[in-house]
């Protein structure tokens, strides 16, 4: 589970630089939430490309906590990159007002998708790629909004568990206040990831690493001391969220269907 931060940093910085430059772009766009995942993506991008080529945005809703703004600003200050604030309240409220009794979840999804719209628009403005900020833990658990925060052009941190995100962030000397704060999607007041999920990232990462990376069977995981119900509920979450990790499924008619027997890498010709 412990990674070599020096080698991982080199690989991720090269990845960002290579992917951006090979298609002829110069810049990247990152939405800073005040949390550690976006701080790490932004830090890697700044290391890879230099501060002039990184564009940071803070996209609050009216209920977003002031702590989030302070933390996003602390990251921008640390990187010496300008942080532009675009409040999304006025964009999402008109829609909310047309709906009756919207759940917190629905509202949260709309906000995540609104932020996606702003970031992709800004990417067109500055000629940049939108950098993903979803880590491996979230991707496996499906803890993210499809076509919202899960949407990006390239994701440097999607193969790092949350525990590894913290470790790499310490190595990169990201401001401590961002590393030690409780993870939150900040979609409503007082929300924390771990309360919502019902377990800690430390706990679930230990399980995920053995289950996914080391391919332990359920029996072996029980022998390792994991609770059977916990194992089964996590396995079920991973299974149910497979759709979020894929393109929409296409009904096959022809001899060559996109992504099934029309198979090219994304880096085709670059």
């Amino acid at each position, binding site marked *: 589970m*412990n*990674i*070599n931060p020096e*080698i*991982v940093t*080199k*690989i991720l910085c*090269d*990845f960002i630089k*290579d*992917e951006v430059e*090979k298609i002829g772009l110069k810049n990247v766009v990152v939405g800073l939430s005040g949390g550690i995942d976006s701080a790490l993506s932004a830090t890697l991008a700044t290391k890879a490309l230099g501060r002039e080529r990184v564009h940071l945005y803070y996209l609050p809703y009216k209920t977003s906590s002031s702590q989030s703004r302070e933390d996003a600003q602390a990251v921008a200050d640390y990187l010496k990159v300008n942080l532009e604030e675009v409040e999304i309240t006025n964009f999402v409220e008109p829609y909310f007002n047309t709906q009756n009794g919207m759940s917190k979840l629905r509202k949260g999804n709309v906000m995540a998708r609104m932020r996606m719209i702003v970031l992709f628009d800004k990417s067109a403005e500055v000629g940049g790629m939108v950098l993903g900020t979803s880590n491996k833990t979230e991707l496996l658990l499906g803890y993210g909004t499809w076509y919202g925060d899960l949407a990006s052009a*390239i994701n440097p941190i999607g193969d790092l568990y949350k525990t590894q995100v913290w470790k790499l962030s310490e190595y990169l000397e990201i401001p401590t206040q961002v590393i030690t704060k409780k993870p939150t999607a900040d979609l409503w007041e007082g929300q924390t990831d771990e309360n919502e999920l019902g377990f800690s990232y430390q706990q679930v990462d230990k399980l995920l690493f053995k289950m996914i990376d080391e391919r332990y069977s359920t029996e072996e995981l029980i022998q390792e001391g994991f609770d059977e119900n916990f194992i089964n509920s996590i396995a079920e979450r991973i299974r149910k969220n497979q759709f979020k990790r894929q393109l929409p499924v296409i009904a096959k008619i022809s001899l060559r269907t996109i992504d099934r027997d*029309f*198979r*090219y*890498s*994304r*880096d*085709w*010709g*670059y």
Partner: protein
Amino acid sequence: MINISLAQIKPSLGNIAKNAEIHFKHIEDAIKKNQDLIAFPELSLSGYNLRDLVYDVALNEESNIIQRLKEYSKEISIVAGFVYEDNRHLFYNSCGYFESGKIVHLHKKVFLPNYTMFEESRYFAAGNNFKAFDTKYFKCGMLICEDALHLSSILTLSRQNVDTIFVVSNSPARGIFEDSFYPKELWYNTLKYIATNLTVNVVFVNRVGVEEGVTFWGGSTAFSPFGKSIIELKLFDEQVKDITFDRKEIRRARIHSPFFRDEDFKMVKKFVEDFGDSNEH
């Protein structure tokens, strides 16, 4: 003394014209430096994660790029990787040894990895032999990446009296832990073993760059017949470095460590006869 350039390049995926230019530039530089040989990585002319591009980037003896490489090989020997299409329209992950205006040897990758992130046997036909070949400088064997991780390849090459083995590779960076960098450990252990225990020169050229989120780690290297590391190219970055092999080193190593002399192929033959050639035992 034989002077070899290790060209740790970053091919562009499916952009064969661009990759050919990269080759020609490094070949010309090496000729200017009076090098005897220049070695490029696996699939150096095409890139790795080709999928359906395999059929578009395939070359044969008549292709212009191959003709150009043959021309250059009148001045310098060249090891380069490409997709080879034979006259039956089978496609191979191949590596050519170009010398004196011709392809002296074309190795077709035998062991096509098709597990975890690899899907080579979906696209490529497999070669079926490891044939030693004579060049101006060496009795050579050629291994493409996975080939080198099998006992049968090094056993059969050794039996054919090779003194130098080229291992060309597209090894991805994966499994990066605090106390180990898995692919580098795997490869350096393997290469060192081959060099020491076959008492041969080993040249390893691995690519760099990123394809589809997969980073190739470089770290091209060479080992003497004593298993001594001669050079280590950078991890992850493009680099061309020169080495020199001394033919006398093989003699010295084989006097010091006569493993090659003492190998018992009769016993191997008997084993296969008695035991069969199935994996099922």
